[in-house]
């Protein structure tokens, strides 16, 4: 029974292969295919961020773009950086951004349009910058024609040891033999203190303040007519929830 099934698969696959037809390449390099996929998503979503008007959709496209960038990092062999991008950038910074968008995405501010002249100017500047960068990318010969080096996959341990100040990785090809490779202990400590300062600063900036006069946002809310949309109610409740309300 199994042999009959197997025997029937072969002619079926022949037909299938004939259906698929002459494939332009002999063997597919899956690394390149996946790179194309992730790069297409990242670039398309980045352009969508620029073109979208609705700020919530912009945030969504940004999330997709950065997640695809993390995929690109994984493909380039930087697994630790890729996981870090997913956890901290997408899972932390962008969640914060989306929170901010939710708190301020009320009807007049969801889609603010820019004037046409501004858009034309920005488009020209962007096109010029892109042309310069692409030209630089293709000028350097060794960047264009790689031969895939077969190396062992880099591990996370050298990164950890480097952050402690000890470099245990092989010196990168092309490093002069007498070069002293520094550890990253000092930048690590500086960034830690920096994050602490930012934590305290952001908490201070966002504290609930005792006010004698009402906030501009609450004045604006009370001046809206009796028909209050669901979003206005949500906005006031949500900002009250987060900032503890006015005194």
């Amino acid at each position, binding site marked *: 029974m199994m042999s009959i099934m197997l025997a029937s698969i072969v002619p079926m696959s022949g037909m299938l292969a004939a259906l698929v037809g002459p494939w332009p390449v002999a063997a597919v390099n899956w690394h390149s*295919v996946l790179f194309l996929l992730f790069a297409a998503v990242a670039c398309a979503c980045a*352009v969508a961020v620029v073109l979208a008007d609705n700020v919530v959709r912009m945030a969504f496209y940004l999330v997709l773009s*950065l997640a695809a960038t993390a995929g690109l990092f994984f493909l380039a062999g930087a697994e630790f950086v890729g996981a870090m991008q997913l956890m901290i950038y997408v899972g932390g910074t962008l969640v914060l951004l989306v929170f901010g968008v939710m708190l*301020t995405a009320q009807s007049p501010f969801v889609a603010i349009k820019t004037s046409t002249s501004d858009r034309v100017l920005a488009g020209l500047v962007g096109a010029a910058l892109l042309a310069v960068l692409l030209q630089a990318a293709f000028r350097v010969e060794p960047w264009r024609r790689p031969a895939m080096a077969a190396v062992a996959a880099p591990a996370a341990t050298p990164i950890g040891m480097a952050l402690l100040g000890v470099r245990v990785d092989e010196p990168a*090809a092309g490093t002069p033999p007498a070069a002293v490779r520094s550890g990253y202990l000092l930048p690590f400590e500086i960034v830690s203190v920096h994050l602490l300062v*930012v934590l305290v600063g952001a908490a201070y900036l966002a504290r609930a303040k005792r006010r004698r006069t009402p906030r*501009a946002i609450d004045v604006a809310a009370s001046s809206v007519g009796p028909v209050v949309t669901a979003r206005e109610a949500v906005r006031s409740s949500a900002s009250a929830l987060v*900032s503890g309300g006015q005194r």
Partner: protein
Amino acid sequence: MSLLATGLSPVAVPLFAGLLDAPVGVAHYLVVGAILFTSGVVCMALKRNALGVLMGIELVLNGANVNFVAFSSPYLRGEGAASLGLDGQLIALFVILLAAAEAAVALAITLNFYNNHATVDIDRADDLKG
């Protein structure tokens, strides 16, 4: 490959030729980085919503990160080619951390601005205008 016969410029051929079966080089990653960076710059210049400007900043930093990782990758270079090695990955790591810090502060400022002016439109931030 027959693509050379199609008359594409010599610059485009290394980009498109055999993308499905040839390995990807640093230049391809740099193209992605360039597109991300340019979108970020245009976004920063174009958007009137303060959070839109912040998103542009994130895109710019990510474009730079893609470049760093591409230069540091051992897979994208040929044998014995010069590469940043681990330094590129560590720099990318620090960029991610600092971007998180900067986004937190920028958001706190934006929310304060929103509370005080009832708008996130940066064109309305003209109290100090002479």
